């Protein structure tokens, strides 16, 4: 079995204290949520922490609170299953419940936290390997080496961001409260992601997500979360789409749209071109096809896993189209009887 390296473990009861400890660990400190991502990486020595700060006793980071007419406050240490088991999330923020319900497998959903899923490290099969494997093959950019083995000759790390809930939260225009050594700051969720596969998050040293806020939808948005993975459980998304459509009274014209992709880039991608095509238009089969194709153009998967980038890109188009058809009450495929 893989041996866990030695590190110091603390479980403070105060967010400020946690922040201070992480800052002092000077880049070697890591916040532990459910451990479904971090502990695997630590055992593989992808990450070698000097300090692990557990969120176990950080009660202020836990729980779900809905304020009528305002929105949903989600503590980042909330377990993923609590999202889809919450009646209010299911009723008022169904997109978030949908995405949380297909993260990994059931055990991941019960251990994994919202904050951990939002801060899921970017993944690549040249990176998520044991120390022996990586040292045998050679170190890539993300490990401090000087090459990318996926995009040969490339200058940037293309490891994929494969979190599910980020796309749903982004589509719901979630905002973060980030606690840090110099107090709290607010930021849209999409600002959390840097776009660089090597250092995918914009959190500064000592910063911790303190809260995720989702404004209450004032309109009857129709939503879908479509995830493509090889098996019906466990797997990360090879491609996934969170979508929300606001339809006119006729049920055909699209007044507003939000489409966010995940699994196909170094960060979640707001599919602006697809949104532009949908917005204001009658959702004919032609428009649906066009929107799917436009979304696929914004997907930039690399050969970071077993599936081909071409197929994952293509799946984005299929997922967008399936999602829209589902919202419209149509069969998943126009060719289906």
């Amino acid at each position, binding site marked *: *079995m*893989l*041996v866990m*390296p*030695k590190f110091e473990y603390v479980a403070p009861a105060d967010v400020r204290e946690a922040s201070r400890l992480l800052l002092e660990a000077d880049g070697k400190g890591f916040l532990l949520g459910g451990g479904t991502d971090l502990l695997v990486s630590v055992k593989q020595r992808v990450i070698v922490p000097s300090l692990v700060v557990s969120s176990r006793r950080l009660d202020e980071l836990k729980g779900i609170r809905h304020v009528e007419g305002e929105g949903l406050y989600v503590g980042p240490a909330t377990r993923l299953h609590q999202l889809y088991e919450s009646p209010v999330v299911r009723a008022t923020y169904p997109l978030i419940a949908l995405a949380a319900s297909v993260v990994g497998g059931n055990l991941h959903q019960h251990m994994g936290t919202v904050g951990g899923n939002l801060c899921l490290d970017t993944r690549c*099969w*040249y990176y*998520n*390997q*044991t120390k*022996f*494997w990586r*040292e*045998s*093959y050679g170190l890539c950019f993300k490990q401090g080496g000087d090459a990318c*083995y996926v995009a040969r000759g490339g200058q940037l790390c293309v490891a994929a961001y494969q979190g599910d809930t980020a796309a749903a939260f982004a589509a719901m225009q979630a905002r973060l409260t980030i606690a840090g050594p110099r107090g709290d700051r607010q930021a849209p969720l999409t600002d959390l992601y840097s776009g660089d596969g090597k250092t995918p998050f914009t959190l500064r040293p000592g910063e911790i997500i303190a809260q995720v806020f989702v404004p209450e939808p004032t309109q009857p948005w129709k939503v879908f979360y479509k995830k*493509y993975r*090889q*098996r*019906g*459980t*466990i*797997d990360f998304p090879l491609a996934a789409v969170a979508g929300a459509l606001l339809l006119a009274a006729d049920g055909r014209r699209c007044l507003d749209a939000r489409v966010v992709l995940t699994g196909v880039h170094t960060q979640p991608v707001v599919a602006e071109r697809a949104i532009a095509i949908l917005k204001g238009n009658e959702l004919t089969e032609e428009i649906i096809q066009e929107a799917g194709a436009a979304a696929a153009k914004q997907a930039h998967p690399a050969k970071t*896993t*077993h*599936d*081909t980038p*071409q*197929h994952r890109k*293509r*799946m984005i188009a*299929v997922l967008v*189209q*399936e999602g829209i058809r589902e919202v419209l009450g149509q069969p*998943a*495929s126009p*060719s289906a*009887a």
Partner: protein
Amino acid sequence: MSEFAVVGTNARKYDGVEKVTGAGKYTADLNPPGMLLGRILRSPHPHARIVCIDVSRALALPGVKVCVTGAEYAGMKFGVFPSTRDQSLIAIDKVRYVGEEVVGVAAFDEDTAEEALDLIDVEYEPLPAVFTIDEAMKEGAPALHEAFPNNVGAELHTEYGDVEAGFRRADHVRQDTFTTTALAHCQMEPYAVLCHYQNGRLNVWAPNTSVFARRRALSNALGLELNQVHVHKIYTGGAFGGRSETFPADWIAAMLSMKSNRPVKIGLSREESIMTTRQKHEMRITVKSGAKKDGTLVARHFQVWAGGGAYMSTGPIAIGWPLAMIESTFRCPNLKYEGYRVYTNRPICGAMRGHGGQQLHFADSCNLERLAQDLGLDAVDIRLRNAVQAGEVLPSGSKITSCGLTETLQRVAEESGFRNKVGRQRHLSRGVGIGCSSMINGFNMGARSGSQAYVKFNEDGSATVFSGINDTGQGNETAAVQVAAEELGLPMEKIRLVSSDTDLTPQDPGSYSMSSTFISVNGVYQAAADARRQLFKLAAEHLECNPEDLVARNGVISVQGSPGTSVAIEKVIWRAWQRGKEIVGSGIYMPKLNLKRDWIAPGMQTGQVTGAYSFGAVAVEVEVNRDTGEVTILDITAAHDLGRALNPKAAEGQLEGFLAFGIGQALYEGLVWDGGMNLNPTLLDYKYPTTQEMPPVKSILVESIDPEGPFGAKEAAETIGLAVISATVNAVADAIGVQFNDLPLTPARILRALEGKERVNGAKTNGARKKRNASP
């Protein structure tokens, strides 16, 4: 009332409670006092010369007790066969794949042992490497082993009948080439081994499929007498062929224990388990079949290239076994078979479910399917026409004793509605496919081909059975206990089984040749029958009747037809012992084999290869999503001829388990490579199917009552795990009109094929598909 009291019932698994409550111990659970933890430094290179190894800094680390290197064991080599000893116990001058063992370290804790690995200095001189079959066989390619300059480490050339003449008589000849990828077994238990060398004896605990094979290999490798090696009974968390051999971790743990005089345990990571125990051979297979207009096969020619990795392992079996399977499924008098087992600088390939048969069956059955389509014949009919029958002598001279192949085919065809569905659901992108296969039940292992057992009694009338039978989760122990209980006339609770321990139990071939039911349970049956004879003789004296008139059930021996005239078994035992008479049952079952038959030796592929053949057929219905390329298996109907169902529920469990294996190979699984590096050595990235991918399964147990099997029983399930692969590929062909030649059928591959960009029908097509595929 059933003919039997215990046989044929869904008795609870003998080891079930211990396993589900967590009380059952596996190797990693063992922590004897004074134990050291071992780690292995492995080669980072696929092919390199070792210039020097310096362990002095590691040995200086506090907590490190001992190190071992190959030089200390120079000249000692391992091989499954005496003729294939090609692997040093630890690499000495050369490494041949990434992960090969270079140094073993034992320390007081795992952290220290791990840290010590970083302090070992090894200087390598990298060598050019070959990774694929083609690269390895190319003229002038670097050779892995000096003795095999073309990297072909084993080959087989066999011809039965006259194949050239056969093809001349054929009305139609069809040739296809297929490929399969290397696979991982993914046993739930990662490999672990504990060795304790004490008082001149080596004690070993490790997941295994035969304690006797493990003992033999360790004694050969380490130069110990057989009775100086004690391989203990320990639960094994799945084997699937991948726990059959001894591995370098065993030798290293043994050497570290011999040097330190302490118990040493080495637990491998999942990555090490996948990369450094065994994998399944990747294969390229060309099948040429000639048939008459009515589908009768007249000649077949198989060419098999197996990419086997750095060492020979069970390579000769991997290329030889499929021949035994091919001749025993579809009758063909003229059969030519050529097999090449090729060394490459990748992990070592050995046994894995069907042992080459799974790959060959896929090729065999898909070729036959296409032959049928060329001739305008029904997929079921062509199989029925060529299906072997009981009593038939095969081209090699091996005889089929019992055979339910025709019945399994007819029943799956009927119960799946195959004929009403085939070719009629393409507008829904749905299709059905069928496959069938045979399987041998044990093979020639010389004196180790048979299984022995003893039965002793206790004064309360209960019995203890000693058998070498091995159970890695299949239910073999349960079957043995059921058969012993039936034959002795005792309830199952009155039977205790002591199994799989080289010091305590007699010889057994192991559970890696589909032999456990047919041979090992048979050994238990023979011993129980012997004990029963002794009991009946004494009971007959007591009851003043003939032993032939007696029956035993539920602990009581009575005269048939007059249950009032009876005596308890407990009483028979008491009386015997009081009179100074012992009752000990003993028996052996040795299958009637040609013990000269060899997997690859020229001209030696004749005579009886196995004691019995089992058979099975599978019908699969699929739906293909033309947008995503995903294949959903809607349902499976599987029939297996297992001779007799000793425990129907357990047999169904075996059927479903092996179907999952086959589905994995057909649709999901494959080891992916970058040169010599395996890119997916984890359970996350290696895509074996989960319960989510399992369709509803209708299991049909066909009982052909084998004349030699215990109560007529044969192995359960191995055939259908083979047959489900071609059935799935054929079903996809029926659904979308594309016949695939390469596994697995991933969504990306399906979409590429629908666009005409994938190699199908034996040739890569560009642009539009050939018309022939559109409608058979």
